[in-house]
Structures are given as structure tokens and as C-alpha cells.
């Protein structure tokens, strides 16, 4: 039920945006996020963007595995 999928914002028209999910495009309500720009990544739940997805944070999380390994071995 709380399934949400990341995608890239390609167009913005008022409270709606077009989000590209790996090639599939869908109209999405973006009114829950302020100051959204084309090119931003968002997480979409049941037709509404609920938050921005942060690329730098994603990189840091992936880096965590390497850090944990170097602490352990």
C-alpha cells in the first residue's frame, strides 16, 4: 500500500508534473512538494509525488557498506 516509486520530473504545469519512471511517463500531482524543478527526482505514491529523492544521500548510503567492511575486516 505504501509502495512508492522514484522517477525524474520532465515537465511541470501548475500542480501537475510529468514523471518519467525508466521510460514510462505519467501525470503526477506535485502539490505536496515546494519548489520542484524539471530534472529533480521524486518518489511517487498513488499518483502523488511525496518527496524529493536525493542523489548525494543515495551515494552516501551505498558508501556505508564499504565503510562497515573496512571497520570489520
Amino acid at each position, binding site marked *: *500500500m*505504501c509502495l512508492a516509486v522514484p522517477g525524474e520530473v520532465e515537465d511541470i504545469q501548475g500542480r501537475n508534473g510529468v514523471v518519467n519512471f525508466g521510460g514510462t511517463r505519467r501525470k503526477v*500531482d506535485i502539490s505536496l512538494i515546494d519548489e520542484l524543478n524539471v530534472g529533480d527526482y521524486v518518489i511517487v505514491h498513488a499518483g502523488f509525488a*511525496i518527496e524529493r529523492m536525493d542523489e548525494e544521500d543515495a551515494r552516501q548510503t551505498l558508501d*556505508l557498506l564499504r565503510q562497515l567492511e573496512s571497520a570489520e575486516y
Partner: protein
Amino acid sequence: MDLSSFHDRDAVQRAAKLLLRKAPRRQLTFLHVCGTHENTIARYGLRSLLPDSVRIVAGPGCPVCVTSTCEIDSMVEVAQDHARVFTYGDMFSVPGSGRSLRDARADGADVQVVYSLADAISIARKSPKPSAFFSIGFETTAPLAATTVLAGVPPDFYFQISHRLIPPAMRALLDAGEIRIDGLLCPGHVSTIIGAEPYEPFAREYGIPIAIAGFEPLDVMLALIDLIDQVDSGKPRVFNEYSRAVRWTGNRKAQRMIERVFETCDSEWRGLGTLPESGLRLRDEHRDLDVRNRFDLKPREPAPMPPGCRCADVLLGSADPSDCPLFGDRCTPPTPVGPCMVSSEGTCRIWYTYGGRGRG
């Protein structure tokens, strides 16, 4: 943005190796409260990668499964006697005390399954008639209804608000003390809205390690590693593994919309009973959109789970689906007995689909 590394086989196996090295000496039980987490765990067979001393159990993380029979029965009544009903697909087949919305549609009622509330609004604008939207879901979904109410709905469009809140349910579970919990794996998309902050009292007051996790297999593994480290260090805290989507204070705009439209209320969770301040209802100024305000609906009492069904224990995390004598025998996805087998987010349904325990 390339997120494929989060389900990369090699990365998950490296994380599994780390988990085995950190294997705790005493048995630890971690609880999650999210059907999407259970889906990731079962689908990728993550339980088979855990040390024997680590157990993950599923709590009441499926909003469809915990919606009360009274709410479902009322919406069946609305569909049969009063108005067109819009519902998310997950809710369509779940029976109340007897019938589901699917049954009502088979008998000719106008019940329409939608992917989004926005689709329901758009259909209602194009073909006007009295309509009611069955608004279920946790904090992730509640702002969708709130922002729609504030934007204005078509004439004769009403809501059955059946939203439930996760932190009050976690508190009730911990206070009930039915199972010993050594750590909580917290739901990423609920947290996207509410933030990481609301979990701090659980770490502080209950001394329980907390990890907010995303929904890829590596997300869950990293969160489990941190939970074990927290147990080891004896310093419980809130670890936000899903920082790419969860801010400390959450989505403030979405929270403000929820506050403007809804107020909290005691709420009945199917199988768990009434939990204090665990639900939402429309504030007085929006009460004219409440389906109960528009139609004269019969008063209802919650119905017990069907005889023999152990969904209540499964929702509490005190039984696995395979502990239920009906599971996979009388109770299967085409012939579900309890709510946890009906919804695609139900623990029984997920275990039936992927095999839950993930080890031979």
C-alpha cells in the same frame, strides 16, 4: 539517478557476510510494520541470509488488513444503496463481516477501482453522480486526501476516512508486551512524510534500537546491521538508512496539509482492537465531506476474525502465517479466509507468494 546498486546481488551478499560476522550470541527479534518491507524480505529471500540468532517478524503494516469490518461493511452499504464507490485495488476484495466491495459490484453496484485519488476526482468530474472515496492508508497516503480536500472536490463527492497512524500503533504494540522486540525496522515511506524525529521517544523511553529503511534488499540489510550494532553498543538511537528520501523532520508541507484537514481520533484496528489516537478523521470544517454525514448509514459492531483464522496474531507479530492451520490449505489467495491473505501487502499473501521463512 542509478539506484541499481541497492539490489545488486554482490552488494547484498557482502552485507549478508557482515551480518553473519556480527551474529549476536543471544536471540534477537526485530519487528517491522510495513507490508512493503515484508514484500522485499520475502521476495529476495532475505531471511535465508540472516544469522540463526536474528529473526524478523511482521507487525500490523498492511493498512488494508487493519481496516475495520465496520468501515468495509459501511462502504458496501454505500455502494449498494447510495452512491458510486471509488477504492484502491487492494481494498476491493477484502470482506468485512461478510461481503466485500467486489461482491457488491458483482451484484450490480457501481464500484470502481482507481490507482489514484486524482483519477477518482477526474472520473467524478466527467460523469457526475453521488460518489464516495474509500480513503485508506497510513501517513504516506493521508496527505493525498488532505491536499485533494483543500484543492476542492466535485459536487456530491464524499470520503470514508480510514487512515491509520504508525507511531501510536507501535506504542500500543510495545505497551502490550505480547512479543519481546529488540529493534524496530521503521517504514521508509511513512517516514518520508512524518520524518525520523517521531521515533526518537521509542529509542529514548523504551530503549529500543530504531532503523528507518528503504525498500531495496540492500536497504533492509544495512538497517539490520545497524540494529545489531545498536544492540551491541547498548546505545539505542534512530538510524536513518533511507536518508535519500527521509528528512529528519519529514515533509513539512504534507504534515501541514494533514493537520489542516484532519484531527487524530481513537481508531479500531482489525484484529488489534481500539488503539488510542491512532486514526484520523475530518475536522469540523470539512465534516460535510464525510460520507457518514451525507448518508444515513447503519451503526455497526466490529466482527471477529473468521473461526480458526490467526490473522490477529499475525498482525501482532506473535505468529507467522505458517503457524496458522488454515494457511495454504483452506486459506489461499483465490480462497482467502482472513484479511492478511487478501491484500497483496498482507503477510500471509506475501508468504504464500514467495515462501516466507526463506530457509528450508
